[in-house]
């Protein structure tokens, strides 16, 4: 400090010689601080991007039938051999996803023999604090062959768990209702396998430019108007016919 102050004193002339306590300059530490903050933020951003790139370069499954960006792999229903593949990106905590699930169920009922419906996770974690744990709960149930049962429970009873601080307790109750092995469910919810699977879906959605949920892709092409049930069904029927 004395060294810095004396050089400052020489630079500032009369102000420095006026006696009393030396007045250190604010400019130099401010400049150093700005540089340090820029470097720290840059390092944090670089590390975060590198981690994401590594995750994105994880081996992806084949993309047959659905275009180059979206794979037809995942939880599916309908005809697994169908040429028409409808991929849905869903956030269990989104209200629109809950209401769309009945439309999808209706389509599966009517056209399931000629259509494969594939489920992908796309939890919007910034907006929906419980979306990720809900996705994990569905996947954990899936490991005990009850994915769709948990999927339906989560969407039907969304208001019950969407805003609570400890949704996991409610999901444990659902798991008990589905007669799952609770110890295994509790372990699987936070398993690396489950989290990595959801992460792959999220990355796939990001690469496919999914900006909102639910998002639907029919053979790799996005369906724009999914809120109108009639139009939604018509576009799917048209796609099924064009592939026959």
């Amino acid at each position, binding site marked *: *400090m004395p060294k810095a102050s004396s050089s400052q004193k020489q630079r500032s002339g009369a102000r420095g010689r006026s006696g009393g306590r030396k007045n250190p300059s604010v400019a130099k530490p401010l400049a150093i601080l700005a540089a340090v903050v820029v470097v720290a*933020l840059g390092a944090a951003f670089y590390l*975060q991007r590198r981690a994401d790139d590594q995750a994105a370069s994880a081996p992806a499954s084949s993309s047959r039938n659905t275009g180059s960006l979206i794979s037809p792999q995942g939880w599916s229903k309908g005809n697994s051999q169908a040429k028409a593949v409808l991929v849905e990106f869903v956030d269990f905590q989104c209200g629109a996803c809950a209401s769309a699930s009945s439309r999808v169920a209706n389509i599966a009922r009517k056209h399931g023999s000629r259509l494969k419906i594939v489920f992908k996770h796309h939890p919007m974690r910034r907006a929906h604090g419980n979306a990720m744990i809900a996705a994990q709960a569905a996947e954990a149930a899936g490991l005990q062959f009850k994915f769709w049962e948990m999927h339906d429970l989560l969407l039907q009873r969304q208001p019950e768990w969407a805003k609570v601080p400890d949704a996991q307790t409610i999901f444990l109750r659902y798991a008990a209702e589905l007669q799952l092995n609770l110890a295994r469910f509790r372990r699987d919810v936070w398993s690396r396998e489950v989290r990595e699977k959801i992460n792959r879906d999220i990355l796939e959605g990001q690469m496919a430019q999914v900006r909102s949920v639910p998002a639907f892709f029919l053979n790799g092409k996005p369906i724009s108007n999914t809120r109108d049930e009639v139009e939604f069904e018509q576009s799917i029927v048209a796609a099924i016919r064009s592939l026959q």
Partner: protein
Amino acid sequence: MSTNPWSIRVMVLAGFAGMVDSGYVGFHSLTGLLIPCGPAGGCDQVLNSPYSHWGGVSIAWFGFAFYLAVTAAGIFGLSGFRQVFRFSLAASLAAFLVTLYLLYVQAFILQAYCDYCLLSALLVFVILGAHLALRPWTRPPESA
């Protein structure tokens, strides 16, 4: 007040490391992607728990603000503005209490640990230790 520059340098280094650590977690919270986790293994459980956000903002950004303040205090302190340590000591004490609470949450409520949070806790302890070594509550020695 002690004028030991080593304590201040440790404070700046810990503040810098804390900014990188909390900035990394903060950027990850913005992307919504899962964060890679090290030996502790519970990063997602901790960072997606309701305790990870205050008022909708990831607590990593509050941590970033704290580390930024500490780094600023250290840099200004090295340039002669020693009185700033009284404020950064108060901030460090508050951060220490918050850290104890977050460690309690990880150990007893979530029963999961996050590497980034543990590193942050260590840095807070180091920063508080550096402040205590400086004894900013005492009068600074008169310069010759």
